[in-house]
């Protein structure tokens, strides 16, 4: 065993050139569940823009109008507290699940793994053959067969990249709008059309060329692992206690002198990141479980127990006690529950009206009326986040003060933000050093009501 794995990426040769990985395919005990999960995830991704909940696209991230719909609940750009709860909850969920299950996400659900291993690589395999055939094809000079195979592969991959890119776009501009746009000339909707091309280009770059390098050198989540995991987190690991010394029994050597690993190298040949899991835990390992299936297939043939490479914890692999419940699991779990509870509570008590009383920067502070009263010109800003027409009224309990809005109650259509003038008339004698503090109540016909303190201005005499 050489020690180059300690300081050299597996996919880079001595001169710095990339070593292309041609992983073999082994369909084993863990391959099929991953296959099912991957296709369910792809299906969800593809159909979600077509599903409607309460008349709206189930997930609709309308950045242009700053409205974000999740299963019938619409969030506005001003709902930053929800965003904080969601992002905070996601971050803590990441900590919690990583400390328990390690890189389960990478191997089972990350789009990089799902699309590459279950969509693009199968296309490549179907056209160019198994790993040895693919290697041979890449090494042979350009001829008719190589050209048509490469053209067909890239053409098919581009077609699927188009479907995926359009679906991605549908989350942001709406599936139906996108279909309408597609029926017109691309020049009529140049931005969405260009975005489709850009996303296709990015997918072509990622799944056609960059591939495993994204996980090994770019993905920030992979970098987090070392701090989030400990020796009791779930990993895909090689049982070196059982496996070493590796090798096939030579003449005169008994099987008992050797470990269970027969050094066939299949675990390395199936690895999509090109590493040798027998060198221990490595940052490049995305826990895809391909090496588990590969090793199990060999152990089965040899009639030895399965699981020489298996899902286990570092402690488990070293023959020490496994501890699932650790302080970090409780701490992360507790914070996660707190975030989820706060989110559920906030959502349950969500107020769908938002109001503000503001003074315009260019407005005069006050004016004197013919009857000797003072008037302040304010603005009432109303956001109706509900799906019904609502009517808003303003009132004050202060005696001698009249509030004027163009309509009372003031109607606001669903999903709109409107600003209406609000005039406050009062007697000059009420002023104290040119100021008067009053409380205005704003309410709507659905039970919303809010008190706002306003400082009125007048002459300081």
């Amino acid at each position: 065993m050489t020690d180059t794995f300690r300081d050299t990426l597996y996919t880079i040769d001595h001169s710095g050139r990339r070593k292309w990985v041609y992983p073999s395919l082994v369909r084993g005990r863990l391959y099929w569940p991953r296959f099912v999960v991957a296709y369910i995830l792809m299906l969800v991704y593809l159909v979600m823009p077509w599903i409607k909940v309460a008349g709206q696209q189930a997930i609709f991230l309308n950045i242009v109008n700053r409205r974000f719909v999740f299963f019938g609940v619409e969030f506005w750009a001003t709902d930053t507290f929800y965003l904080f709860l969601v992002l905070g909850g996601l971050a803590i969920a990441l900590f919690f699940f990583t400390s328990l299950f390690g890189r389960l996400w990478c191997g089972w659900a990350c789009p990089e793994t799902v699309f590459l291993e279950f969509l693009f690589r199968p296309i490549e395999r179907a056209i160019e053959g198994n790993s040895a055939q693919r290697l041979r094809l890449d090494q042979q000079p350009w001829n008719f067969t190589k050209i048509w195979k490469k053209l067909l592969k890239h053409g098919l991959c581009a077609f699927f990249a188009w479907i995926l890119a359009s679906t991605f776009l549908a989350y942001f501009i709406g599936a139906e709008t996108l279909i309408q746009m597609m029926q017109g000339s691309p020049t009529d909707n140049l931005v969405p059309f260009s975005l489709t091309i850009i996303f296709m280009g990015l997918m072509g770059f990622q799944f056609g060329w960059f591939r495993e390098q994204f996980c090994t050198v770019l993905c920030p989540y992979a970098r987090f692992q070392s701090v989030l995991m400990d020796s009791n987190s779930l990993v895909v690991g090689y049982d070196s206690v059982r496996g070493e010394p590796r090798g096939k029994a030579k003449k005169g050597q008994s099987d008992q002198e050797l470990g269970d690993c027969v050094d066939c190298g299949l675990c390395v040949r199936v690895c999509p990141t090109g590493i040798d899991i027998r060198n221990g835990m490595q940052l490049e390992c995305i826990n895809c479980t391909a090496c588990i299936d590969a090793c199990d297939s060999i152990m089965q043939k040899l009639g030895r127990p399965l699981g020489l490479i298996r899902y286990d914890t570092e402690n488990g692999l070293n023959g020490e006690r496994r501890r699932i419940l650790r302080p970090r699991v409780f701490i992360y779990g507790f914070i996660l529950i707190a975030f989820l509870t706060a989110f559920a509570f906030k959502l349950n008590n969500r107020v769908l009206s938002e109001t503000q009383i503001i003074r315009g920067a260019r407005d005069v502070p006050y004016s004197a009326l013919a009857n000797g009263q003072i008037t302040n010109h304010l603005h009432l800003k109303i956001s109706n986040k509900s799906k019904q027409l609502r009517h808003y009224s303003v009132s004050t309990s202060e005696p001698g003060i009249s509030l004027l809005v163009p309509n009372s109650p003031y109607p606001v259509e669903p999903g709109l933000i409107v600003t209406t003038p609000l005039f406050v008339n009062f007697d000059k004698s009420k002023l104290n050093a040119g100021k008067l503090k009053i409380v205005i109540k704003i309410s709507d016909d659905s039970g919303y009501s809010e008190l706002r303190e306003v400082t009125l201005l007048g002459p300081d005499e």
Partner: protein
Amino acid sequence: MNNSSTLSKFQYYKWPLAIVLFFICLAIFHSFLLMTAFSKHPDAVDQAPYEKGIAYQQVIDKIENAYVWGLKTEISISSADPDNQREVSVNILETKTPKLSIDKVTIRSFRANDSSLDQEKELNSVVGDYGNYRQILNLPKGLWIFEITIVTPQGEALVKKQKFLS
């Protein structure tokens, strides 16, 4: 099939067609760029960029060694005999102690625009005179560049000099 239904079907193909056209244009554009690059500047397309990069790095490391070890080098060249032979004397002065043990010193001389007289030779040490090395080289008049490589057990150092010889 009447005209209007052909048209309405075509509507659905506009984007896919435009995408295919875009990538075909991109491929043609890149092929054109590559063809131009290969036909006009074949020297600009390097066949072994990594190997060259590593070789450059080795030169940089040697120059760095000369600086780190505090090596100062003087070169003096005698006037030419009728066959353009000149005596080249290299003096290696050290600013740091302990003195380096020098295994070998080589010199490579070349001219900017003429590779016909490129030469590389080992210099002879002068017994009893640490740091003094000599050699006879064929150096016609003109601007010469000298690369002096000093080989020590710790590695190699490289010093470059330039001289106009009349």
